[in-house]
């Protein structure tokens, strides 16, 4: 799959794993995560299937104890627990409400 990082991600440069608790953000795109190795593409697709698609509004609702990992995120009214590894695949931009 073509995973070249589009300009939007480079300019804002913010990833979901860097967001603070309570942050309201919007997905810009998904990028590669070498930790997942050969499966990375499947992880991207699963994330998209769960609603982490460009344009989707997200809200960070909490963190685990050690290393603030995993994080809990609300997307389309559903809450998911993601690890930092997955969250780092998701480029976001802040939205003001």
């Amino acid at each position, binding site marked *: 799959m073509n995973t070249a990082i589009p300009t939007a991600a480079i300019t804002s440069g913010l990833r979901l794993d860097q967001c603070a608790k309570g942050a309201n953000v919007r997905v810009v795109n998904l990028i590669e995560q070498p930790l*997942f*190795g050969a499966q990375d593409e*499947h992880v991207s697709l699963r994330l998209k*299937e769960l*609603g982490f698609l460009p344009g989707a509004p997200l809200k960070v*609702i*909490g963190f685990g104890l050690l290393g603030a990992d995993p994080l809990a995120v609300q997307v389309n009214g*559903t809450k998911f*627990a993601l690890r930092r590894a997955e969250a780092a695949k998701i480029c976001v931009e802040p939205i003001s409400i």
Partner: protein
Amino acid sequence: MSAVPIRLALVGNPNCGKTSLFNRLTGARAKVANYPGVTVERRSGMVTALENPAELVDLPGTYSLFVTSPDEQVARDVILGQLAGERRPDLLVAVVDACNLRLGLRLVLELRSLNRPMVLALNQMDEARRRGISINTAALSQAIGIPIIETVAVNSQGVTELRKVLDSYAQQPPIPNGEQVLTLSDRQESVEALYDQIESLIKQHVIQPAEFPRWQDRLDAVVMHPVLGLVVLFTTLLVIFQAVFAWATPAVDLIDGAFAALGEGVAGTLPDGILKDFIVDGLIAGVGGVLVFLPQILILFLFILILEDTGYLTRAAFLLDRPMRELGLSGRSFIPLLSSFACAVPGIMATRTIADPRERFITIMVAPLMTCSARLPVYALIIAAFIPQQTVWGIFNLQGLTLFVLYFAGVVSAALIAWFMRRRAAREEFPLLLELPSYRWPMAYHLLIGLRERAWIFLRRVGTIILALSIVLWFLATFPGAPEGATQPAIDYSFAGQLGHFMQPLFAPLGFNWQMCIALIPAMGAREVAVSALATVYAVGEESIDAALGATLAASWSLPVAYAYLAWFVYAPQCISTIAVVKRETNSAKATTFFTIYLFALAYFAAWATYQIASAIVN
């Protein structure tokens, strides 16, 4: 009317209410709980109250046909008809949680591309209305070209209509269209296109408030708080252990008293002889000894059921994910491991929700170290006999605390073993991606059904395997009788006595006497039988039956021996059914052999170490 029943399959996201609907439609009582991944195996039943026969298959939940874990694979295999010897379903009954419309509709649209007959049950409509979600079902149905029936699976609203629709299909089975194959490129193409479609469907036909119910978010702020959350978790666990001991006592005393009275009554009325011995020593002592633990088991299950039904479990999994990852496990292994406190068999089945094969393997290997409810009677008996009833640090019941320590020992050992088994070599990461379902008030109906089910399972075990083993043991402990002019007690000459004496040298380093050795054998069939076996062996050996088993043990075992016996049961004797399910789920004789041997070795070592250390301290 067709002779062959039409075959229907329930498909949908995890936790959308498939099994609740299945239970309504077929009258089954399959397990329902508020977390994703409750159902991990297909299960079928006939739909009741239909004119035409229809077989319904309940499936594990899945987010997509492109599956990531063994339970999702089961769903996919059934939907696509890829299981040998099983017909592909004639009609898919898609279930969508109305509060989680996007995720549900996505799967439905993906299924639609298979070009197969399908109806849609829009479930959890009660909750959707409460949240102010309003859906124009007729228009939505028209737009996607699939009949939609609004349902509330928990109170059977809409289920009659659903039955009617299913019946019409059963009467005139749909003609299968050409099969559609799914490929990865379809998937890439479809993901974004489908969501565009969904957004426009939702814009046109659904009015959805943007807000998530406030109280849920407030609760999450506490329960999922990195520090407060752990305080909540450990407090909950401690309360459960206290309750198992403190609350059960009156009921336990009642049952105990009833069996003692029964034993005395029978002993008083029956003439002396073999029949009286059999009934008093074999049946009443053996079965009563186990039955007495029913209240404790029910209290334990009540708490587990409440936790399962509220939606709290996934939050606990969230909090524990990171610490568990250090051990080669993850938040995903939490629920299988927690289920193993009830029984390791469903716990090991539940590991199918784990995508990472290595993690799944480790979880299976350590699951039996979680103290299952069948071990509770053994612990409870020995604790009650040896640990004084007293209050420590103002609030804790010492017996409850001891029980907590035993459970804790199992958990800590599991952690250590998982840590040892974790491969040092770098391995691929697997994502967590765990859905955190909405909280729900636990339903009294579910709790009652669940408890009745547990009570029934326990009573059935008592009535069948435990009773049978007690009878066999009584015979072995009674025959052959003592020879003329015997100097030892009669039981020493019986088969059981001989076997016990034969085994005893092997267990001598652990301090076990021959009665304890005997009890280990039937415990392989069902662990509770250790209790009834001890009851029978001591009752046959003793002349009087009025001494309670606990008192007998307290008089004949030393404290280090009692501790060693407890240590043995923390690790050991995985029952036969656990070994069988490990064989089935790992599909490897090598893994099963390893599993069996390592647990036995561990039990032996732990009991030996406990005995030696405790003896050194006592002396």
